[in-house]
């Protein structure tokens, strides 16, 4: 059940091995990449399984959309190559498990899906979110994070239940057919991962940034431009949905924020480091964070803008120490709108 839509023949015939050659964290010569890819295809041990940082990026790099990353995670689980020590994985599985406390509630569109980030629900306020409904909690957690833990089995087990919860407890009886996903993880889970695993999603999803972009159009006469240089910390889950990247530029343009060119942005974005620390790779996390922060500082940005709350929790202090203000995209938009309101 929920078989991964992965075609080994596509990989077998692939000459470029973009999934490996473009990897920012493992260095390959093309010849070696082909060898390691063969091992992966044949179910053999390979350094790919051991060194993969689970950054999701190869999902973006594969020109055939063949889901190489999901296949790597399948193999990690099959062969017991845990990216994260087992006790930590078990703790996380318990910590994030559905509590089964969800109760039916009437909602009205637009419905903002806050996933399992109850600490961020205060962000859903003001003119940007007038007349919205909000859903949040462990029982609607998208569970995509298990890709970092070599646990596709947890996604297979939990994601369908979460989708069903959203539909049955909130949307169905309310006559609502669409949710706005606050986090890239949810949007990626419902639009890219679920189809890859053959998991049906009975509702439509909208990315938060599309929603914000439209709201900013509605409120355009109330926007006070930010007039500041900004850096954007692209999250790993956006690698599943690169087609949404343009919304970031659209929003920045609408609120007068200048996304200055820098080395580690867009396709070359770096991991926030949290997953690397879970993998006990502090040296790599230190290096990645330093390069990223140096890059932001050299670009002279005033704000580091996040969409992923985990990226923000991880980098906020370090960003602030560099004199850069850490802020969620939603809150930056609020600031642009509310400034004028004041």
């Amino acid at each position, binding site marked *: 059940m929920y078989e991964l839509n992965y075609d080994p023949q596509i990989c077998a015939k692939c000459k470029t091995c973009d999934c490996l050659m473009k990897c920012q964290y493992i260095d390959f010569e093309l010849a070696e990449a082909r060898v390691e890819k063969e091992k992966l295809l044949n179910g053999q041990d390979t350094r790919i399984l051991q060194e993969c940082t689970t950054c999701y990026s190869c999902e973006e790099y594969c020109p055939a959309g063949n889901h190489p990353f999901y296949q790597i995670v399948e193999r990690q689980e099959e062969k017991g190559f*845990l990216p*994260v*020590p*087992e*006790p*930590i994985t*078990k*703790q*996380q599985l*318990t*910590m994030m498990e559905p509590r089964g406390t969800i109760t039916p509630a009437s909602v009205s569109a637009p419905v903002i899906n806050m996933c399992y980030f109850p600490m961020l629900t205060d962000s859903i306020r003001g003119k940007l979110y007038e007349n919205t409904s909000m859903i949040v909690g462990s029982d609607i957690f998208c569970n995509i994070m298990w890709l970092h833990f070599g646990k596709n089995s947890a996604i297979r087990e939990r994601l369908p239940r979460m989708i069903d919860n959203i539909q049955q407890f909130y949307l169905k009886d309310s006559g609502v057919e669409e949710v706005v996903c606050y986090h890239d993880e949810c949007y990626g889970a419902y639009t890219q991962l679920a189809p890859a695993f053959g998991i049906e999603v009975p509702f439509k999803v909208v990315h938060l940034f599309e929603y914000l972009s439209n709201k900013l159009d509605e409120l355009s006469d109330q926007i006070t431009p930010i007039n500041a240089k900004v850096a954007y910390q692209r999250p790993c889950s956006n690698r599943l949905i690169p087609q949404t990247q343009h919304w970031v530029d659209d929003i920045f343009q609408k609120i007068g924020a200048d996304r200055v060119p820098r080395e580690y942005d867009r396709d070359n974005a770096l991991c926030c480091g*949290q*997953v690397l*620390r*879970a993998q*006990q790779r*502090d*040296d790599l996390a*230190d290096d990645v964070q330093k390069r990223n922060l140096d890059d932001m500082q050299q670009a002279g940005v005033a704000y580091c803008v996040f969409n992923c709350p*985990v990226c923000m*929790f*991880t980098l*906020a*202090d370090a960003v602030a120490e560099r004199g850069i203000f850490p802020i969620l995209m939603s809150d930056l938009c609020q600031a642009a709108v509310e400034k004028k309101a004041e």
Partner: protein
Amino acid sequence: MKEILQALVEIVGTEFVSDQPEERYLYSMDPGTMPAREPDFVVMPDSTEQVRQVLLLANQHKIPVVPLGAGLVLSGLSRALKGGIILDMKRMNRIIEVNEMSRYALVEAGASQGMLQAYLKKHHPRLKHSAPDAPPAATIAGNVCIHGSGHISHAHGFHSDMLNGLEVVLPTGEVTRLGSCATSDYWFSRAPLPDLAGLFLGWAGTTGVITKLAIKLYPNYRFNDVGVFVCEDARLMPDILYRMSETQMAEDLTAWMTPKPDWARGFLHSNINYGANTKEELIWKRNLIRASVSEYIDRKIAGFIPMPAAMKQPFLEVPARQLSRFADVRKGGGFEYVGVIMPVDLFAEAYELGLEIASRLSVSYSLGARIIGINHCMMFFYAYAFNRADPADVQRAQRALEATNRAAVDMGGIPWKAEAPAQKEIIRKMDPNMFALMNRIRAVLDPAGIMNPGNWEID
């Protein structure tokens, strides 16, 4: 009794002595499970001279005297088991001196942990003292007397190891200084003189009243961090702790095992706290600590929990406020624990004992340990919460405490700040000649037997 009351009034003033039922009730108990014992008088002296006069009076009339700090010991050591005077030291709370260069503080016996912490933060930000995970009202003297431990104990041992000297009033009224202060104006050390401070450490207030003490202070690092290492097998813990301590990078090394929240159940956590004056030094220390347990990490059977800075804050707090949450988990404010000083070798056995007792007696529990010195020993604690308003719940906790004390002694550990019944368990196993020596010493120091009677006694 009226004559005694009047005599006490003449010593400390009307406002600072009471024989009224309200005060006697309030001073009859502490937050633990030990039954209330009312004193006849509560007295609050303001000076060594007043303490001396109270003791002379008590000695003359053979009135028991129980010295009291903040009354937070939990094991009922400051209850008036045989009536008499509770000598509440809270008015004597002056911070007399901080010697920055020789890193010590001289305080009165009623000075609290919080007061010194705040004072140092304001006036000597480069220094800190080792604070226990007790409410800030807990006194420094009280914690030193009971061989307490705190946030620098992994690096520097028990709080009694950090003691430089004492001023004590003997039960017969002599005021005596012990340590360098006996010979010098400086309170820098207990060496090289004969170390008589031990006559007042671990005795549960049965040998005299401490009025002043000097404790060592330590560098207050600009940057601090904590790692939380987790595994599932208690048998690994001694080696994990040994390896971490071998680096000598940590100031504090503690373990915690708790059934709540659900994600923590069944896992063994080791918190390792370390500090540095630069970020580079901090990372260097982190890397050494990490390298020490890399074998377990590489085998994927243990690892450090990834924590953003905000999540680390509760683990960096001194004292750790989150402990108080468990203290009220049953509601009703009842909380007591058995802290057993024992070798780290016994970690797995001690852990299994806690689980077995909690399961058998159906008590809410939390287990943990503070490593004292670089694995030289540990204070393994078995904490039981109970609802004070529910007698059955209190009784369950009492049974658990008794069972734990008995089993811990049999295992080779020694209950710390032991309740009077647990003291008897210890004496049961103690070298009889040591107990005889204790009694001979007490007979010399306290011929009238007035100091905290009922403690360190057989029956």
